[in-house]
């Protein structure tokens, strides 16, 4: 299984994602430059964390227009998996591959911590290897992670089992309904504020992020060998 990790000017978790994939899955992962017009040949696309274009104006606002994003959109529309982590989640909402938006944290500060999350659905190619309702610990590090959507959208997300992760205990950013991650209706595009790529080794304080990558690999194998 081959992963593309998109690099915008200002991305800074790109190499972490590559290393996590190689470490956890021993599968190839490559950096794909924002100017690239294609993600052909990649089985999954990861939009990593960071501050694309400095997050100036709004997180993800400028990145949305990078040439590579048309290719990512096509990849998503073809039903292939796209995972947006942190800044990647913000980009995915800006390009409307995911509904809603990410607002400034309600306390207005950047927040870095290891937080507790509940896996709300395992019915995605990103979370099948978790247990339903499992509580996991993942790092967060963001200033604009407060998920917002209007009531209708929120209702929709709930009805279609699209809320993938919720914060347990203290909500670190004021997100609606404690949402930490969502998936699109087709279930192949997921965005999440926490950083699974930083939680793949016990020395890093948690290895609970590894299952996201193993889930993706298993889903891909099933599709390929089915």
């Amino acid at each position, binding site marked *: 299984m081959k992963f593309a990790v998109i690099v915008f000017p200002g991305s800074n978790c790109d190499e972490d994602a590559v290393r996590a994939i190689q470490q956890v899955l021993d599968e190839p992962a490559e950096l794909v430059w924002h100017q690239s017009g294609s993600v052909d040949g990649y089985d999954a696309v990861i939009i990593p964390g960071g501050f694309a274009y400095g997050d100036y104006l709004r997180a993800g606002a400028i990145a949305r227009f990078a040439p590579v994003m048309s290719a990512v959109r096509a990849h998503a529309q073809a039903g292939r998996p796209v995972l947006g982590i942190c800044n990647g989640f913000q980009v995915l*909402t800006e390009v409307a591959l995911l509904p*809603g*938006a990410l*607002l400034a*944290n309600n306390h*207005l500060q950047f927040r870095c911590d290891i937080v507790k999350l509940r896996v709300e659905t395992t019915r995605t190619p990103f979370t099948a290897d978790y247990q339903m309702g499992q509580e996991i610990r993942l790092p967060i590090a963001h200033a604009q992670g407060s998920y917002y*959507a209007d009531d209708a959208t929120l209702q929709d997300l709930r009805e279609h089992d699209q809320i993938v992760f919720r914060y347990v205990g203290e909500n670190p950013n004021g997100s609606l309904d404690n949402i930490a991650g969502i998936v699109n209706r087709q279930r192949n595009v997921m965005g999440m504020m926490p950083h699974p790529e930083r939680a793949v080794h016990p020395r890093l304080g948690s290895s609970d992020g590894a299952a996201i990558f193993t889930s993706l690999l298993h889903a891909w194998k099933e599709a390929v060998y089915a």
Partner: protein
Amino acid sequence: MTFLARVHVTLKASVFDPQGATVARALGTLGFDEVQDVRVGKYLEVRLSASDAAAARERVSAMCETLLANTVIERYEFTLAEEHH
């Protein structure tokens, strides 16, 4: 012709504005008890060339729609003034 667009981007009324709330609280503790409410938004000055005001207006609208505001959460408005040197 050169125009200066003064663009205001604010959160929609339905979206909570923590920054406004924080500024209001800070003003309160500094003794500005008369403050009832604060909203904080972005202000952009965009200087552009255009053949006339109508053209400038159209272009600035397009900029707001595509980049300057995220209409899921924000609204925008702007004024235009011709600049003379």
